[in-house]
């Protein structure tokens, strides 16, 4: 596989991008401001786009340039703009009802990363690959995934939930670029499209949520129990 035969410079750049994406996940975790989440998500998507292009260059997968372009366009530009549009209509700027404080959340996130590292090393041993790039890709993929779930669990604003879901998928995207760059182009394209549809659905839902429930936080959603 590609990640095993990288020249050192590219390997370092891959690692740098993966780690930066992880740091951006922590930016989301550590901030109260919804706009910060969105910017961090956009930056993360741009990093993934750059990574796609680099993987395409290193492995000779020309179709990955296309994926990179679309990732930058959809995830880096269109989705953040849509989220911004939702934000402006909702008149909420920050997470008001936090369940745990950002500082606590970051510590929890750090614990999740340690867990991800352990799992990644175990997988690496099991498949007899202990190249640093592969381990790092696995770690970052699992960490971003777990942090996404953490965000879903501890944030209550509707927009935070949407970003949590998007973060989950960013993690998989990032890992899959390094681990399985040969995954069929069609799937990646449809995934991008799917994401766009998903966010459109979220946008419409948030609007109805506001009109029917009168709030954009999930703390208002407590009617259906039992």
């Amino acid at each position, binding site marked *: *596989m*590609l990640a095993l035969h990288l020249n050192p410079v590219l390997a370092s750049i891959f690692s740098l991008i993966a780690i930066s994406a992880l740091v951006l996940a922590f930016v989301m975790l550590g901030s109260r401001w919804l706009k910060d989440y969105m910017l961090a998500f956009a930056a993360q998507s741009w990093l993934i786009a750059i990574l796609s292009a680099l993987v395409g260059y290193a*492995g000779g997968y020309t179709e990955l340039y296309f994926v990179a372009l679309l990732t930058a366009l959809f995830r880096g530009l269109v989705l953040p703009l849509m989220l911004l549009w939702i934000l402006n209509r909702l008149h909420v700027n920050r997470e008001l009802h936090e369940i745990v404080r950002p500082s606590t959340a970051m510590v929890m996130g750090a614990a999740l990363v340690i867990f991800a590292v352990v799992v990644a090393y*175990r*997988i690496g041993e*099991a*498949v*007899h690959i202990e190249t640093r790039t592969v381990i790092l890709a696995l770690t970052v*993929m699992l960490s971003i*995934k777990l942090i*996404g*779930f953490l965000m*879903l669990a501890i944030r209550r604003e*509707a927009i935070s*939930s949407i970003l*949590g*879901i998007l973060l*989950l*998928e960013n*993690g*998989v995207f990032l*890992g*899959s670029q390094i*681990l*399985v*760059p*040969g*995954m*069929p182009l*069609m*799937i990646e394209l*449809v*995934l991008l499209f*799917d994401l766009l*549809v*998903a966010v459109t*659905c*979220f946008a*419409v*839902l948030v609007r*109805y*949520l506001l*009109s*029917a*429930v009168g709030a954009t936080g*999930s703390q208002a*959603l407590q*009617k*259906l129990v*039992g």
Partner: protein
Amino acid sequence: MDTSALIVVLLAAPLFAVVWSLLVRRLMGWANLLASLVCLPVSIALLAGADRPRQFFDRLLYLDRLGAWVLLCTAVVYLLSSMFALDYMRHGEDTGRLPNFYALFALFAWTMFAAPMANMVGVYWIGIELTTLVSTFLVGYERSAESMEAAWKYIIIVSGGISIALLGTVLLYWGGTFVLGPTYTLDWGTLDAIAPRMPTALLQMGFLLSLVGYGVKVGLAPMHTWLPDAHSEAPAPVSAMLSGALLNCAMLGIVRFLAATDAAGHGAWPHRVLIALGMASLILGALFILRQRGVKRLMAYSSVEHMGVVALGFGFGGVLGVFGALYHMLNHSLNKTALFIGAGSAVHRFGSHDMTRMRALPRTMPGFAWLWLAGAVAITGAPPFGLFRSELAVLLAGLQDSGTRWAAVLFLLLLIVIFVGFLNHFRIMFTRATPAMPTGPLPGVLAWLPMLLAVAALLVFGLWWPPLFSRWFGQIAHALGATS
């Protein structure tokens, strides 16, 4: 007609209803019913013709007997609930949005025909995600605070859950690169073929992540939390589609991943995991059925329970387990549709979801109440209905193996608890006097007809297990690698 033409018809019919509803904006319900009337015979023909797995349309679609069986279940539910939709939706206040409703309804059916036929594992994932996106709007269709809450929980929990399955798919693809090189197409046939040679750890993780991810969509406990809300707040015909058709579509994926671990010779542990999840669903379903006030929530928890039964069937495995699980899929589809038709009609009649308001059913819903009761008796697995046979088969499959005997015994105990708990609600609704005659509309012909058809079919399947089914189930069990 050859198979690819049939597939085109199956996928074109619901799309026709979508376009009709959006453009013509009249007689949408009838167009939808027409589409569903086309889909049922076509799906039967597809099932009968699926002698061996085949790929269609440049290897985009894949059809084997198992997939075709799920299509049949979907088509049955689509037909019955399309009839009922005509009756149910005429009582709504906001008729201006009906074209949207029927367009979404038919599109939902389309996604549930498309997803089980996806050849690539990734495309199947996308198909399942599409079913969520479309049905979210159906769940939130009534736009009350409760239905918006249900829709929001549905999309967040299911999208989050299904992204776990995406991770599983990526890991499985990665596992395949050790066998086939960096670029290949991961379809169901390939997955079975390469599973024995890919690194064990990746297959195991891929399986577990997929099981949990699609398990969210199937509603296996403890990932079921979206299900009671969505099923109870959606309009009743949609609840029937969610429960009777959608859950099977996601179960199909789990069964295929399970077959891949079997092909790789991973032994009993994947089955044990599935048994554990099935058992958890049964226990949880039983507990919530006992203390339930909402009539549609009662039906929803019953779905959690029955998906647990199907999971147990595939988990116990063996020819008998697969037979029971497959038969149970169809029986549950028929039965849950009948029950949701009953529940939806009762909600309209009494103007409330609350079972404590539904009283003296034989007087307040003359005739119809007895059909609903027959459906309720059937869902508890009592003879002479189809579910008795399928649950018996699952039970016997569990008893065969000493390792799963405890689960089978517990299963039997829980069935008894559910029998008592579920029918007790009906006993109270039937026998307590009503303070005042309800003023809501009585069920019309198009509620009676699908109800009669479903209950009659359940009765037939209870008295007579069609030999043709046995032949098909045998082939599916063989394809899944079930022995003994």
